[in-house]
């Protein structure tokens, strides 16, 4: 009896604590961003000027919002065919056996590699290839970052997908086969409609991860605080900017960085919300 109560209070306590911490973080960001908002208003969001020189200080988030969205969406597009194939391979075609379990461990391994190691790999291995292909003079930029991001998010995009694909009821598939459907037709008409929302949820999770990724991007994107003119141009993302400039920031620059953090938080929230809406539509 007593232990039941304690257990309950513990559960309630830890649940409430998490809510408080989350609200506290949002409150801190809000309070920290107020001076910047007072100075620049909504212009902060669409201004492309980032000038930290004293006396000429002017901050705008647009280059970083664009950089963040372009790198992560491009990464998701690159990762999509791979993640989807892996999901199908592991969820439907080869559920058991040595090869699939080996593949599964390799994908788990990808998720476990620290992002700074991805950055190193991109810097020393991928960059020379990009330069040799003549895509861009120094090998840095949005495209290079997106490729590395795409590899980083494969585990997130594929594992949830393979999970839900393997959970599609066997009776449905068997019914389709008995009607003479080929395997491809089963995938198209039974598996995708059934597992669609779960597969999609995986992509949203992956996109969220790509939006927040910092270290690997910092090392590869070129950190130019201008609006990129194309996918092979240099750029910068919100997370990378904060990581770079936080150390020596003070005054207006500090509060502008906090506002960037708040915007990043909002963007991630909006992306997750849109994802949930689409998932609802798909599963309805």
């Amino acid at each position, binding site marked *: 009896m*007593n*232990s039941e109560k*304690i*257990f309950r209070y*513990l559960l309630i306590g830890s649940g409430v604590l998490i809510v408080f911490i989350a609200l506290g973080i949002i409150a801190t960001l809000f309070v920290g961003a107020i001076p910047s908002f007072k100075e620049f208003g909504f212009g902060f969001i669409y201004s492309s*000027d*980032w*000038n*930290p*020189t*004293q*006396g*000429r200080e002017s901050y705008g988030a647009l280059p970083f919002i664009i950089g963040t969205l372009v790198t992560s969406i491009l990464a998701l597009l690159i990762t999509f065919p791979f993640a989807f194939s892996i999901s199908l391979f592991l969820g439907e075609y080869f559920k058991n056996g040595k090869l699939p379990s080996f593949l599964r461990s390799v994908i788990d391994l990808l998720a476990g590699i620290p992002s700074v190691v991805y950055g190193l790999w991109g*810097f*020393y291995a991928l*960059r*020379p290839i990009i330069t040799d292909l003549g895509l861009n*003079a*120094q*090998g*840095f930029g949005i495209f290079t970052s997106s490729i590395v991001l795409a590899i980083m998010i494969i585990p997130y995009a594929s594992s949830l997908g393979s999970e839900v694909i393997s959970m599609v009821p066997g009776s449905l598939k068997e019914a389709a086969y008995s009607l003479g459907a080929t395997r491809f037709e089963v995938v198209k008409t039974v598996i995708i409609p059934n597992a669609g929302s779960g597969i999609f949820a995986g992509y949203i999770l992956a996109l969220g991860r790509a939006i927040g990724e910092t270290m690997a991007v*910092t*090392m590869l994107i*070129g*950190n*130019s*605080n201008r609006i990129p003119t194309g996918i092979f141009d*240099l750029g*910068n993302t919100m997370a990378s900017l904060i990581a*770079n*400039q*936080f*150390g*020596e*920031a*003070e005054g207006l*620059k500090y509060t502008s960085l906090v506002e960037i953090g708040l915007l990043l938080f909002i963007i991630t929230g909006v992306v997750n919300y849109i994802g949930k809406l689409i998932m609802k539509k798909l599963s309805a």
Partner: protein
Amino acid sequence: MKKFQLLLTALIAIALMTSCGGSGKEKASTEKAEAITGAGATFPQPFYNKIFKNYSSEKDLIVTYGGIGSGGGIRSLKDEIVDFGASDAFLTDAKLAEMPSEVLHIPTCLGAVVAAYNLPEKPELKFTAELMEGIFMGKITNWSDVRIAAVNPGINLPDLAITVVYRSDGSGTTFIFSDYMSKVSTDWKENIGTGKALQWPVGIGAKGNPGVAGTIGQTLGAIGYIGSEYAFAQGIPVASIQNLAGNFIHPSVESVSAAAKGEMPDDTRVSLTNTDASDGYPISSFTWLIIYKEQNYKNRSFDQAVQTIKLIDWAISADAQKETTKVHYAPLPESAVTKAKAVLSKVTYNGKALN
């Protein structure tokens, strides 16, 4: 059930311990100092780490230094959570006015910012101030430009695009570099200015000295600026730069030290860039420790104040200064040591002089 009780007891115990820890920190004014804490610039950190370690083992006093950046060092001193701060840029009059009480600057050693580049055949290049402006502002975009060749006769310059590499993180290195550029170029002064982070018209940003050096090393045709202590330690090829007297000076411990030979104000707050010393390297700078003039703040004990000043006094002594070159910094010239000692003698505790 027993498990939950155990867990609860543990939680309560932890809560009690943390609350006790808080109240135990109050210091009586007569207490002996056990540890001295400082924080700030990362640029002189290898030097500070070395001398503070030596001092700690000699005096049986723990000295800790956190390399959190000059801005962080100033903030920590302002919040009165450290015994001393450290900064690569001296505090401006406006910043000094923001501090809770009077702050003193004590220079500890000198460093420089060097221009490093990656060219085939590794030629030794010379740059004038005009060339520096042209290259780093994106007006000169190719190594085969006649303006570079005019200053570097007899050197085979390739037809190769110039890639400028700068620090993406806020840095004292960028501050010193831009301070020099603003002094020698009006275009730079008006359009880019001086600061720890800048709005760059061209180039790639990389994080930290290792990031910039790595990017230069990996990119043919790249040029960037690096802290001298890092470039010297790594043996990176660097350019000679023309100083105010018209001499091309190769950065070295001697030429950086020589930059500090000129006139110096009594509070030691002086920018050495574009020095008028004829043998001085033009992009040199002091790095400073900063302390409060009145050492009785936040319940610090008298001994804490005495030990802090003793430590700093030792850092500018010949004993500590001879360590500078071992970690690739330049020692203070005699004139600077004299001024620094004079500044230290102003320190007080409850209004009474310490030394």
